[in-house]
């Protein structure tokens, strides 16, 4: 009998009941607290506009919504943010095709703009139809990117991505490299391979555990963005297999790994964030919008350690648009808000506050932009650096599947970095992956 398993049916005692009551109280309290933060105090004729964005878009952070709500007391603005654009875009496409669940204003990343202005342009409001929307201040190529074949303007440009190289002064000093941004820029001026060569030199004397660059994908993105034609030619034909841009960027990415220059991370992952916070790499391709990202992720611990120098060749990585879906309820008000958010004054403010470089030529000329410095980067003259880069960036040709192709190449380089694939095998894997993904 001693071996028989016994089942205990002990009645729950006083402690158990007290615990249950305590738990209930905590859970209820939590629920109430969660509810109370989302009070929807809508007055009769108040209009709530929703804005759907991805990543650190900066509108909310720069206080633009608050400013607009002060100017227009009948408007209330709510923002929905999704961290990564690839998740954001999947949701946006699903909702666009169903015509429901959309925000009044939706951000569109530049890699997706061709898709939106192409097959999907009918689902967006045409800004040309609204007379009070002034589009004359935008860079002409930015307008071309968001205009459909039949001339509908479906997106207003927010920022563009003129690129610099951000670097850690302390690591440069430790490795015996200059730290002054002009001298640093001179190390690689005019040639991306000089940037990698400097890295090889750096790595010989680098502090323990510090790599030259964050990731092979970062090198790839920086290089490929300095070309006009990348994955599609001007006729819209796919040319990624033998385009000069891809070849050059891939080769430099491979060389980065063969010389062991990167932390072998995938960009925009948690581990990559932590590598940034811990100062595991000395340089990173740094489009204007990356400044805010570095400030956020590297945090106060690294304040004053970062600086930025011009990239070897001016390149344009990223940037975005805002559009108003046809299915939205408050299209009139949404168009007004979209035009206001992308007006020169607001673009200039967004740059000085958040580092998103304006796509508006007018805003680019303003002194707030030209003379802007970045406090986190210890007064780095970002206005000057990014303005001169912006003046020379190529008008990129964008195709419908740019994002997918770009990510596949960055992943391909990661195969070399993380799984030890040979460059040839990784290249072939990448091509078959892209073919499989593009094939209908």
């Amino acid at each position: 009998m001693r071996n028989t398993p016994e089942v205990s049916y002990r009645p729950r005692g006083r402690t158990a009941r007290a615990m249950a009551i305590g738990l209930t109280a905590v859970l209820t309290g939590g629920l109430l607290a969660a509810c109370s933060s989302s009070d929807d105090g809508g007055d009769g004729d108040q209009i709530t506009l929703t804005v759907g964005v991805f990543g650190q878009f900066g509108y909310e952070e720069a206080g633009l919504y608050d400013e607009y709500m002060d100017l227009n007391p009948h408007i209330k603005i709510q923002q929905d943010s999704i961290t990564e654009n690839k998740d954001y875009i999947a949701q946006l496409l699903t909702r666009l095709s169903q015509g429901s669940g959309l925000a009044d204003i939706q951000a569109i990343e530049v890699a997706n703009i061709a898709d939106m202005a192409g097959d999907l342009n009918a689902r967006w409001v045409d800004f040309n139809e609204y007379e009070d929307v002034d589009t004359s201040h935008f860079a002409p190529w930015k307008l071309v990117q968001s205009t459909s074949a039949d001339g509908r303007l479906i997106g207003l440009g927010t920022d563009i991505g003129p690129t610099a190289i951000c670097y850690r002064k302390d690591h440069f000093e430790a490795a015996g490299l200059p730290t002054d941004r002009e001298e640093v820029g001179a190390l690689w001026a005019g040639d991306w391979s000089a940037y990698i060569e400097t890295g090889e030199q750096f790595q010989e004397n680098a502090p323990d555990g510090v790599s030259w660059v964050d990731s092979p994908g970062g090198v790839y993105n920086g290089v490929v963005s300095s070309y006009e034609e990348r994955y599609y030619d001007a006729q819209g034909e796919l040319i990624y297999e033998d385009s000069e841009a891809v070849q050059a960027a891939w080769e430099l990415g491979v060389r980065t790994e063969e010389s062991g220059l990167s932390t072998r991370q995938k960009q925009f992952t948690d581990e990559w964030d932590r590598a940034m916070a811990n100062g595991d790499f000395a340089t990173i391709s740094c489009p204007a919008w990356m400044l805010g990202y570095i400030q956020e992720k590297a945090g106060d611990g690294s304040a004053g350690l970062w600086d930025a120098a011009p990239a070897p060749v001016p390149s344009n990585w990223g940037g975005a648009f805002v559009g108003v879906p046809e299915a939205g309820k408050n299209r009139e008000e949404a168009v007004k808000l979209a035009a206001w958010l992308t007006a020169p004054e607001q673009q200039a403010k967004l740059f000085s506050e958040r580092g998103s470089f304006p796509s508006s030529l007018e805003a680019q000329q303003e002194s707030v932009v030209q003379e802007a410095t970045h406090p986190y980067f210890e007064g780095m003259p970002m206005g000057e650096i990014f303005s001169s880069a912006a003046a020379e960036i190529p008008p990129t040709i964008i195709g419908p599947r740019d994002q997918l192709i770009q990510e596949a190449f960055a992943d391909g380089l990661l195969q070399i970095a993380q799984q030890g694939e040979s460059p040839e095998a990784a290249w072939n894997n990448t091509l078959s992956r892209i073919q499989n993904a593009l094939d209908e």
Partner: protein
Amino acid sequence: MTTDHVPAAPPVSTGGAAPPGDDAKEQRRAARRSRRYQRDTKWSPYGFIAPFFVFFAAFGLFPLLYTGWSALHRVSLHNPNELEWVGFQNFTRLWQDEFFWNALGNTFTIGVISTVPQLLMALGIAHLLNYKLRGSMMFRVAMLTPYATSIAAATLVFAMLYGRDYGLINWALGLVGIDPVSWEAGSWSSQFAVSTIVIWRWTGYNALIYLAAMQAVPHDLYESASLDGASRWQQFIHVTIPSLRPTIIFTVVVSTIGATQLFGEPLLFAGSPAGGSQSQYQTLGLYMYQMGWFNFHLGRAAAIAWTMFLLLIIIGLVYWAIMRWVNRDTAGKEA
């Protein structure tokens, strides 16, 4: 099937004193009442369960059939209502699709290394919990907490634990002198990592199901076994396990279905539907998602979904055959 032919209930016995005219009327009324009553008992149950079937038809059957229909077409996420007939091409192309076979293989290996240890551990834990012990209720609740945790939260925490440079696990390995493992990058290590999330989440749930079944095992069986001198281990093998057989089959089937549809854990492990830069832990569910929502080919995604469904049916048939075989075996023994 028609109700008209339902034979009437035997007529109510009437008192002899009642006048004949009244009697016939009463009889007719009784017959009508009894017919109505019979119709009620016959059809009401269908009425009661109808809501389920209506909802199932709307949210289960229709999507299933529509997905099958889409699988025979070229459909883009941009215009899901424009279908272009391609026949079975979306299915036949899977034969040559290396990424599909890779995902199928990953689903299988992750399924095995997550389900087998999970069920064995659940069985052991249930056995331990079945003994009289202090605070057994607390242990049982604790067992169920992982199940109550959201997949997203759990996976994000595990992803941090398995980080290459700053993960807790590599740090602990470093203390005993083992080089850091690049968990996410390797194919076995990443599949192992994903499996541990599944194991962590579902072991307690299965343990509780086993525990419930164990408590239903009659005590006399254990009593007579121990009188015969069986040790605890022998009791477990010869009394507990055979008594639990239907429950074990149930958990195996449910876990298999769960493993085939595994999605959230590998998706959130590195936040990408590619399942690693070489798709080293991309499951079928992830491949379907990637095909539909990142490559925009809904027709191809639908074909993958239906292939998964057919696979589950095949697995179900295999289990059913094994069950029959096992039962025939024991029936022969008893005879």
